[in-house]
């Protein structure tokens, strides 16, 4: 029983390779079947996402299994083995446990702490589980990985903060306004990042979206996408009385919004807070605007700074998470060790020996003084009974069998070897 992880991810292979090796949903089932037809492989899970393709297996002969799995990938995707080998990584034993725990906890992700990976891992596991491609080792390991991920999520703040400019804007809006569903936003100009921020605001539940573009038709088109309304660019300043969030990205070479203008707007707004996001380079809103009360102006650098702070926090939290993973790997290792045959045989023998000694003492106490020969016969009798009863399970445990792990678990259970009486 050996854990073997083979795969590739954003760290070991570039996108082109990852695309070629990804397993499409409808290919997963035949792929798993194919894998398990290899004689050294007893259990398998395939995790295939846009950032990683990883195969988790329980194998007998690690070297041969490794070779066989690599062959399988190369065959399945019609890719040259040599080229493939360069992109693949291999983890064995403790490293493999640690790897799976880290993947589940999103410590191995491109954006550390992103939440999707755990769901993807669960899906991959359930897919294999439902088709009976997993057994005692992978079941235990994956369930543990999921609980480790949850522990990391609750005990650290690894996934708490926004790490993209557009999400940072939403995060800030939530600290300025109480309930975004009562707020209106305005998109001034257009641009990829500004549109993305607008989209995030909409999915955060903003009440409505206005679009002011120098090209009115383009504004209409964007407004259509956002289920919002378009207005002429010249009118945006009048509209600012009614909108609470302005995302500005016009590509103008000078300020389109000055401090005096915003000051007048604030009077009309009766100082209701306004959040201005200036994503344009060069900047379109005079930075001095931020000095006004109840006006919160963030430009690209400010948002970048927010992300940096968040990333720093994530890194600090990741260190805590690694410590948790380390602890859990150690716990899992000791469980795996208990599955090993030798300690089970020893434990079984010790248990039997204890019973034998106990019963002999009881018997001799009842008999009182006996002849040396009688004593010898009784001792031999006890010995033989113990040995003969223990012989078959010992032999079974020592034979290499495919279902040995099940057998060990069973013997430990029926003899209650893990319970201290």
């Amino acid at each position, binding site marked *: 029983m050996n854990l073997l992880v083979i795969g590739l991810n954003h760290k070991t292979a570039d996108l082109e390779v990852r695309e070629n090796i990804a397993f499409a949903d409808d290919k997963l089932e035949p792929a798993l079947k194919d894998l398990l037809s290899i004689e050294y492989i007893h259990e398998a899970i395939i995790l295939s996402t846009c950032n990683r393709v990883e195969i988790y297996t329980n194998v007998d002969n690690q070297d041969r299994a490794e070779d066989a799995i690599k062959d399988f990938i190369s065959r399945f995707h019609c890719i040259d083995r040599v080229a493939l080998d360069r992109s693949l990584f291999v983890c064995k034993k403790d490293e493999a446990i640690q790897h799976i725990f880290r993947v589940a906890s999103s410590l191995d992700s491109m954006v550390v702490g992103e939440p999707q990976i755990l769901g993807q891992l669960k899906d991959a596991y359930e897919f294999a589980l439902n088709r009976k491609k997993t057994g005692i080792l992978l079941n235990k390991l994956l369930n543990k990985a999921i609980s480790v991920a949850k522990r990391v999520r609750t005990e650290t703040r690894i996934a708490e903060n926004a790490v993209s400019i557009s999400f940072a804007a939403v995060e800030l809006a939530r600290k300025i*306004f109480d309930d975004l569903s009562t707020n209106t936003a305005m998109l001034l100009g257009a641009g990829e990042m500004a549109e993305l921020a607008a989209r995030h605001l909409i999915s955060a539940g903003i009440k409505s979206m206005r679009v002011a573009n120098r090209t009115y038709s383009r504004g209409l088109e964007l407004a259509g996408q956002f289920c919002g309304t378009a207005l002429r660019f010249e009118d945006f300043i009048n509209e600012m009385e009614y909108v609470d969030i302005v995302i500005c990205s016009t590509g103008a070479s000078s300020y389109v919004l000055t401090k005096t203008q915003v000051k007048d707007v604030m009077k009309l707004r009766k100082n209701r807070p306004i959040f201005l996001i200036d994503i344009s380079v060069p900047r379109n809103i005079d930075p001095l605007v931020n000095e006004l009360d*109840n006006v919160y102006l963030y430009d690209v650098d400010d948002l970048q700074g*927010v992300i940096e702070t968040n990333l720093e926090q994530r890194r600090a939290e990741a260190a805590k998470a690694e410590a948790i993973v380390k602890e859990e790997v150690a716990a899992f290792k000791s469980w795996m060790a208990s599955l090993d045959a030798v300690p089970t045989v020893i434990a079984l023998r010790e248990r039997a020996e204890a019973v034998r000694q106990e019963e002999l003492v009881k018997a001799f106490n009842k008999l009182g003084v006996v002849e040396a020969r009688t004593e010898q016969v009784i001792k031999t009798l006890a010995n033989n009974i113990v040995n003969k009863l223990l012989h078959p399970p010992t032999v079974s445990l020592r034979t290499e069998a495919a279902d040995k792990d099940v057998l060990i678990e069973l013997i430990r259970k029926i003899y209650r070897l893990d319970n201290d009486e």
Partner: protein
Amino acid sequence: MIFKPIYLFELAITFYFASMIVSVTEIFRGTKTISKLMISFAAIGFALHTSNMIARYISGGYLPIASLHEATAFFAWCIILIFFFLELRYQLGLLSSFVMPMVFALMLLSSVLPRSIKPLPPLLQSSWFGVHISLAFLGNAAFAMAFGVGIMYLIQEKHLKSKHLGGLFKRLPNIQVLDHLNYRLVSLGFSLLALAVITGALWAQSALGAYWRWDPKEVWSLITLLVYALILHVRLNSGWRGRKVAILSIIGFMVVLFTFLGVNFLLDSSHSFFREDIK
């Protein structure tokens, strides 16, 4: 009675102390368990505190808000009461970290003041007594809360303006709800204090034959009322919001504290609870 009132007070203050320690811990390490622990301690403290007040009521025969010891504790009790309401309605992050230290400070002050239960002077034996004082302290408690919320607003606004979003930024609530609450609390406190002044005037008329006697407590209560009237005025009529109002409500609370304690310790007033409390 199983407990003497004195033990109930000590137990209550102990639980408030525990709650304060937990709530201050929350500033550095906020988890759900910690907030639950804080709320539980505060609730137990509040229950003990209430029992203490009932016990004193039974043995004294009047609402336990007559001596400075009782009044200070009652002030703290009102703050907790409002805090629980806010906690139920808004669940603002870290509110307790700003409220519990205030509660504990008041209780600590109360604990060093003489605790004896004396017969109520004939002048105070009136049905106005409970109404007038309860209204005044509930009003003060609302101002205390507005003070706490105002500080929270200033910290959070500082984070947003300076663009340094470390520290308490994640755990403090949004500034809009803080500003809104500040307004609600100031309005509430103003109404209650105004009613307290009115009931006080009516009481004075029936007991002493004059509505207004320019007693320092009366003067300072009027000043307090005017300060908060100003805060409400600039908010409603001049469109002041956020930072400026938060600062004003902090100043307002300083006036409240002076009216409550300063007048008693520094000036001679007929509102001085039991005179011998203060030396």
